[in-house]
């Protein structure tokens, strides 16, 4: 299955992925309209320091702790893709507590959100990988 992979060696820490992600998941067709003057809640985030940076987003684990731990049964795995049913989620953040990658976070409404490989938006492919200027994030089969 194609996943988002990170090549730390090439990450510039430019944070474009975060903005592309927030835009892709905004449902708005203009980036300025979607993001200007707003706090963004991207599903990918850049970590690092001292010249080392890397993007972190959901790994879509084969044996995911978040799915097992969700108290609302709101997280499920289908064809290898882990998704959160935002209608069922009550924002307890147990998934945040168990994700070993720090890849799940509370969204703007307090409900948990994470990377769903841009399958539910109009981007077509993960916006983070598509917009990465240096192939530090790639969407491929490994």
């Amino acid at each position, binding site marked *: 299955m194609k996943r988002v992979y990170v090549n730390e*060696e*090439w990450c*510039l*820490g*430019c*944070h*474009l992925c*975060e*903005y*592309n992600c927030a*835009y892709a998941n905004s449902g708005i067709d203009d*980036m*300025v309209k979607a*993001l*200007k*003057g707003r706090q963004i809640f991207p599903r990918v985030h850049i970590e690092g320091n001292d*010249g080392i940076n890397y993007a972190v987003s959901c790994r879509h684990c084969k044996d995911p702790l978040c799915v097992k731990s969700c108290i609302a049964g709101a997280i499920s795995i289908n064809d290898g893709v882990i998704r959160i049913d935002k209608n069922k989620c009550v924002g307890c953040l147990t998934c945040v507590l168990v994700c070993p990658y720090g890849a799940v976070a509370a969204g703007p409404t307090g409900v948990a959100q994470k990377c769903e490989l841009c399958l539910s938006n109009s981007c077509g492919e993960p916006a983070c990988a598509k*917009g990465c*200027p*240096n*192939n*530090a994030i790639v969407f491929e089969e490994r």
Partner: protein
Amino acid sequence: MQEHYIYPEFEVMRNKDRCIACRVCERQCANEVHRFDTELGVMIADEARCVNCQRCVSLCPTHALKIVKSDCRLRENANWSDSTIKEIYKQANSGGVLLSSMGNPKPFPVYWDKILINASQVTNPPIDPLREPMETKVFLGKKPDDIRRDENGELITEISPQLELSMPVMFSAMSYGSISYNAHASLARAATELGICYNTGEGGLHEDFYVYGPNTVVQVASGRFGVHKNYLEAAAAVEIKMGQGAKPGIGGHLPGTKIVGDISRTRMIPEGSDAISPAPHHDIYSIEDLRQLVFSLKEATEYKKPIIVKVAAVHNIAAIASGIARSGADIIAIDGFRGGTGAAPTRIRDNVGIPIELALASVDQRLRDEGIRNNVSLVVGGSVRSAADVVKAIALGADAVYVATAALLAMGCHLCRTCQSGKCNWGIATQRPDLVKRLNPDIGSQRLVNLMNAWRHEIKELMGGMGINSIESLRGNRLMLRGVGLTAKELEILGISHAGE
């Protein structure tokens, strides 16, 4: 002393309606032009630092940025141009020699643009390269003058070592040090994939790149940095660098601050010591001396590799080339005055040397006149910008061309011409690790391959139009060229007729 304030050359135009304050511009500008003001909550710019490399423009996700030429101008003066006056101010401020990068930007004539290519009509039909085979392969090196047979009457097929290229283009010399590890990796990988060669320049060959040896030309320059047995043996050809188009007659100087880590090891000089390439080779003061070095290198490589001698295009280039052709060299590389550089004194770059088109035509003619054209192959560089330039160069008599600036552009260079600062935002002309990593060789090499493949297609189309199906048939075929807007003297040197003739 208070320096005279000089109004910045560029202005950063930020469309406040579009800017989302993502701060990508701030993070990507090594010149620290952009800054987010936390109190005002907006991005601000210090334009005095801007070199117009367009990194921010390119990466801005909402296209909110553009860089424009400042319109703060001194009173108009056709003789004392704005830039001339500002150079005076700079020198009065600093007392120093002005430094510049890349090729001569002055409005000298570009002869490529005054030469037009022929096409077949009616009597000599054009060839469709999509339907018929078309050969772009070339072999560089000394060619036999005649057919020779052994005592049994069999053909003697042994010839001097040749450099085989899938198309008549090579990436010209750029040293590791002047450009980054990743830029070198991109060039090496692209050359290998394309079946052409790249050139180490005078900075030695990084140990990681020995695997690309069959597609590598190694350089032996006046500083002899990084030259050793394995270096010569690794290469497909060895180039003796006598001169460079951007700065003929002077040497090079890579400051000690850049001689660190791998660069120090690759150049085989201590960390922190300045890498000074003298203006002359201190052992070469004549063609005979040059011949000694040529044969030393041939001995060292067991006569298996062609030796290239690279010179800058200067006034008496034809005579110089004639000498080189008799020195035992297999290939002569001539670098025109528009050739790029990582750093050169501005006055030298802008005022020394001659256009490559004229140099090429006169050298090719001279070697033919003297009957020694087959002694050598001719490679020309110094601003070959497109497939059309390549075709014109071949028709003027070149065997192949060297491209560097076009290769840099493919890798991301925006020709801001501030390589000498070492803060290349595109990860090319820098050794700062955080900037070097901006050039992912996966991308860099792919873009180089794309560019060359595009050129190859265009070369084939131009050749097909002329009814020529092999690059060898185009070489020196000046009948395929016509000049426009050229004087009789220029046409005479170029050896071409005027359009309409």
